[in-house]
């Protein structure tokens, strides 16, 4: 019985952890900023499979600035090592440009350096989200969905302009979790008719036999 309750519980958690909504990227303008042209090509291919139709590339911060002037970009994916001074610096500049229409553009930082200092630096520069390189198809989709379906207000402070950094995963839907204020796991109620021990044993025996 305990085994089944835990399985149901895990399914419920998995359902809420994975965004299930459809993303409609058609007609949105994406800009991928990375000095590695092959990486850009792979990213383009993934985004096109997600339904994106207009994707631009930039190899440097100067290219990004030029593209932002020439096109109407809706979403920026930026490498943390973008030449010449890095993607975090560029993000900081975009957020700091008071008169720019791009001041609130969603920015996803791509980085192979996943140390906490780098993640914090990306957050403090004003990035909406960070994705570890090499990217996986599902992680890129999940991050895009997160930015799309969980929009955050911006904070305008003397030392920071960017998405509100005070956000957290709110825990499991029923309030069950490991935090002090969360409910105990035992509150999960049984659903449906209970199976007897014999039924469970026969299922396990079948599974063992293959």
């Amino acid at each position, binding site marked *: 019985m305990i085994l089944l309750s835990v399985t149901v519980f895990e399914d419920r958690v998995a359902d809420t952890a994975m*965004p299930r909504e459809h993303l*409609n990227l058609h007609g*949105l303008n994406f800009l991928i900023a990375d000095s590695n042209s092959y990486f850009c090509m*792979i990213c383009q291919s993934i985004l096109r*499979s997600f339904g994106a139709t207009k994707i631009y590339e930039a190899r440097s911060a100067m290219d990004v600035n030029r593209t932002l002037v020439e096109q109407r970009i809706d979403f920026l994916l930026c490498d943390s090592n973008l030449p010449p001074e890095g993607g975090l610096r560029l993000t900081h500049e975009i957020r700091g440009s008071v008169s720019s229409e791009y001041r609130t*553009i969603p920015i996803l930082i791509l980085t192979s350096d996943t140390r906490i200092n780098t993640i914090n630096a990306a957050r403090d520069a004003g990035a909406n989200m960070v994705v570890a390189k090499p990217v996986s198809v599902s992680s890129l989709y999940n991050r895009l969905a997160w930015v*799309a379906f969980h929009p955050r207000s911006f*904070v305008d402070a003397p030392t920071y302009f960017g998405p509100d950094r005070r956000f957290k995963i709110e825990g499991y839907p029923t309030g069950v979790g490991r935090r002090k204020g969360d409910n105990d796991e035992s509150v999960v109620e049984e659903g449906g008719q209970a199976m007897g021990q014999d039924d469970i044993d026969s299922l396990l025996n079948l599974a063992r036999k293959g």
Partner: protein
Amino acid sequence: MTNAGDGTIIPVSTRFHSLVTRPGGVSREQAIQSAEAHLGTMQPQFADWLDRQLELLISAIPSGQTEATSEDKWLAAAHVHCRAMRDVGATMGFELLTFAANNLCDIIDIVQAGVDCPFDAIENQVNALLLARKEVARASLTDARRT
């Protein structure tokens, strides 16, 4: 607009947020399946790209300590190709490639930070990359036979 301490909280609505939630679009399952299938079709081209990157990496690394190449120069050149391989290897399904390239990037980082260049360790990682290259070649060959 509300005040929170020293900062002002501004609700933001961008074109991305208003268009991405329109009806229609692609479901998560469809999007992921389609992207993975598409990456699969890129494997033969990936093998060619990898060959070129390995060639450039190997030619950037001096064959011994006696060569008079400026250390900063070759390290920077090797780092570019190494990073490029690390950043795409696992995305294309080749974890060993990313693993070996990442190790080499770490070695280059410490040499750039002032540690004596461990040429033996570099050679080992290059050999691991060559091994990963064989895996890519096998995969693209299998893929070509299937199609």
